[in-house]
């Protein structure tokens, strides 16, 4: 039997992405590159990201990465968006190296969101 291309985390996040959606009234950004799209929207209160939502068009790893970053950054200060843990995401989601570019699109979206929130 050939190996399952998705680990348990990817399957979990793809099947039930709790952070999928868009926040009405939140700050929203879109990254569109490499044939995939990632949109993020965030609400901030008291210097913290109180809610972060994503939408994505792409492969299961990309969708899982959308859920991953929402879980990771929610509750953090907007300044945290300046650091993007590419290696941790690649490892946690067992992203094939040929899909690295798609994770970098998620990074683009996070950086864009950071610029929007920090200005």
């Amino acid at each position, binding site marked *: 039997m050939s190996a399952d291309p998705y680990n348990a985390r990817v399957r979990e996040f793809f099947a039930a992405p709790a952070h999928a959606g868009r926040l009405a009234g939140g700050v929203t950004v879109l990254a569109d590159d490499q044939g995939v*799209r990632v*949109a993020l929207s965030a609400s901030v209160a008291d210097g913290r990201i109180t809610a972060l939502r994503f*939408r994505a068009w792409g492969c299961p790893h990309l969708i899982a990465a959308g859920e991953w970053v929402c879980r990771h950054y929610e509750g953090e200060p907007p300044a945290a968006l300046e650091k993007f843990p590419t290696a941790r995401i690649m490892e946690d989601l067992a992203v094939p190296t040929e899909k690295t570019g798609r994770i970098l699109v998620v990074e683009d979206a996070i950086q864009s969101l950071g610029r929007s929130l920090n200005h």
Partner: protein
Amino acid sequence: MAERMIYLDYAASTPVDARVLDRMREVAEMNCANPSSTHAAGREAQAIVADAARQLGNLLSVAPATLVWTSGATESDNLAIAGGARYRAHRGKHIVTMKTEHKAVTDVFEMLAREGFDVSWVEADAHGRLSPETFAAALRDDTQFASIMFVNNETGVIQDIEALGLVCREHEVLFHVDGAQAVGKLPIDLGKLPVDLLSLTGHKFYGPKGIGALYIADRPGCHVEPILFGGGQQRRLRPGTLPTDLVAGLGMAADVAAASIESDLAHLRSLRRILWDGIRDIEGVVLNGDPDGFPGILNVSVEDIEGESLLLALEPLLVATGSACNSRTQEPSYVLRALGLSDDQAQSAIRFSVGRPTTRDEVEFAAGHYRHAVARLRELAPKAAV
């Protein structure tokens, strides 16, 4: 996986029929001899093989002596194409096939091109059909061999083999047909069809994997050179010890098919209609190929859906994105691209293939699940401009 899986990939492979399994077990238990041996047990094995050839010959309306056992359709295609083109190389170097053929055909043509043969790749129309006029226009004075598949493995498109075969007869071109998706599923009378060589495999029609055959018409000039060497079996065309139990299984599968082919077709037509009616009104859904193609296959694309995510969202449906032989590459299907689909359309293509054991409940569930998966992925996707 806790959920019950629903197998809708019968074009890739079919389950072995219980009667076939019984026959294989019976043969395996009663006879271990080499069918080439001359002692009593060997002669009994020979008789088992001969009986299977009679059964397969009956399905195809041909004499048993016109059949050569192989390991499956890929080997049959290789033997027919490489062996046929080389045998007739003195007549010319031009050989013809279609862009939408299976890799077991296209790769052999590419290998022959490297040997110095001149290959023409004819194009199908937008539905995947090859007209006799287009085919005839591709033939030249030095054309000596052509190969066209009966039923396309991805789209289910059925070619007009009789008309294409007549074109070949008119031009004295040796005509090979890849019948892997057609034998045992469509009525085929090779006594009447102008076909010189036909490849088939057992596991596409409820027989075992690892066994197939090549039909070689008994007519002047119709011959192939062997591609394997090492013994005198099967008139030196395909040496090697025959797997008696697999051969017997293929024979039984042919017998079962001969008795059930019409009822199978009616069943498949009904299932395909239920499936297509259940999804055809989804925005952006298109049927790839010929609406009147083989009813066991339904290939559909849907706009603005990413294919890999669609495939995962469709679990527990076991379906295919392309032919199983190249589905791991995640490249858009070259067959669908040849029909004019964009990369995105080809990438979202799903091949549902139903079979004898498929139930109405299963295809109704599949249609509903497909609708749900498409809706969910569209909901998840951001609009192009936020």
